[in-house]
């Protein structure tokens, strides 16, 4: 049995699943690693919520331009054929179903594809939502990239989210260090596509969702 995947190896799995020519938004945090594994000849175009298609890799210190940043406010670069547009257009692209895939991090995903990724709900935590809710309901396919268990060993793929929700029935696939899960939101059914460093029996014992 292979080991569980580190974030870079998992990013490579996700990158392989993104269709050639797709328009893709990568959320801040772990999902940005996916960009490093996209084949240049696949022609995938990256969207950033702050008004750009054709986003290139992070800029070096020498060519960093404070007017050219990504959603995480990191200096980035332009690719050939890039375009800029204002914020209302950028989010119209999401809600209007023009983006093929977005990859988001998560605190929890439910068996129905409900997503919780914007707020822990902890007392004293300052809430910040950014574009998470718009992305969750906008892209044609919403992939989640996360660890399957939190630091205390509690599963993050759950029967029902108890963190504040970002979107209802919006996640179609969950990529984790321990396996890839397909979600059928209407039936609440989770199918295990592959596992890493864990057996199906152990998954069944540690997750409170039925697995096919």
């Amino acid at each position, binding site marked *: 049995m292979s080991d569980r995947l580190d974030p870079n190896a998992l990013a490579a799995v996700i990158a392989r699943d993104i269709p050639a020519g797709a328009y893709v938004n990568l959320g801040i945090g772990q999902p940005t690693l996916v960009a490093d594994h996209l084949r240049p000849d696949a022609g995938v175009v990256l969207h950033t919520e702050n008004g750009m298609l054709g986003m290139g890799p992070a800029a070096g210190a020498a060519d960093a331009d404070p007017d050219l940043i990504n959603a995480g406010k990191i200096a980035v670069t332009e690719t050939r054929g890039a375009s800029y547009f204002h*914020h209302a257009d950028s*989010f119209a692209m999401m809600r209007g179903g023009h983006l093929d895939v977005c990859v988001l991090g998560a605190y929890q995903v439910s068996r129905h594809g409900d997503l919780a990724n914007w707020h822990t709900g902890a007392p004293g935590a300052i809430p910040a*939502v950014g574009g998470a809710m718009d992305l969750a309901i906008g892209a044609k396919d919403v992939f989640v990239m996360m660890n399957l268990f939190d630091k205390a060993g509690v599963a993050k793929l759950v029967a029902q989210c108890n963190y504040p929700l970002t979107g209802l029935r919006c996640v179609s696939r969950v990529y984790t260090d321990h396996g890839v899960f397909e979600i059928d939101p209407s039936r609440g059914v989770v199918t295990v596509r592959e596992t890493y460093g864990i057996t199906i029996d152990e998954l069944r014992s540690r997750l409170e969702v039925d697995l096919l």
Partner: protein
Amino acid sequence: MSRTVQCRDADEAVAGIADGSTVLVSGFGMAGMPMALIDALIGQGARDLTIVSNNAGNGDTGLAALLAAGRVRKVVCSFPRQSDSYVFDGLYRANQIELELVPQGNLAERIRAGGAGIGAFFCPTGVGTALAEGKETRTIDGRDYVLEFPIRGDVALIRAHVADTDGNLLYRKTARNFGPVMATAAALTVVEVASIVQAGAIDPEIVVTPGIYVDRIVEVSA
């Protein structure tokens, strides 16, 4: 009828902004943040302001400085909490500032609606979440939507790249962000730019914000 006025400096550009105003401020982080206009607003002294902007200030300059000066009663934004938002964080934890948290696309679309004369719109973002609580919902063709209302400002403070003397604007890269929608949605739209050129020097085919939306322009060095 009001044609675009070219101001001598940022102080003249922010003259007359009243206490209690709602001020739309462009920018995503520091990209597109109208630093000179905000500094001038701090000097001008208007207080009890409601600020509408994507973030709630970074570091100690720009919006963060306006907040630190105690001029802001309420912030309407999508993403206040950042690694360097300590000025806002302190005010929020001390209960000295009000926060209306809005999903980023709703913020942009509500401002767009404000500038476009739309009374309200049904939007799928946030359905079933805490940010839609208490809002009217409707099912249209089998999908659920939340009723969202427009946002307008008394003033918009915007950073663009180039203006011509008729107020036509160009922006630069991702510093464009909220500028074009905010320019449409305020009673007084004030724009700082890196350079002002004569009318006719910008190709009409590439104008991003037409001068009809722009009341005051000022060239600033930064």
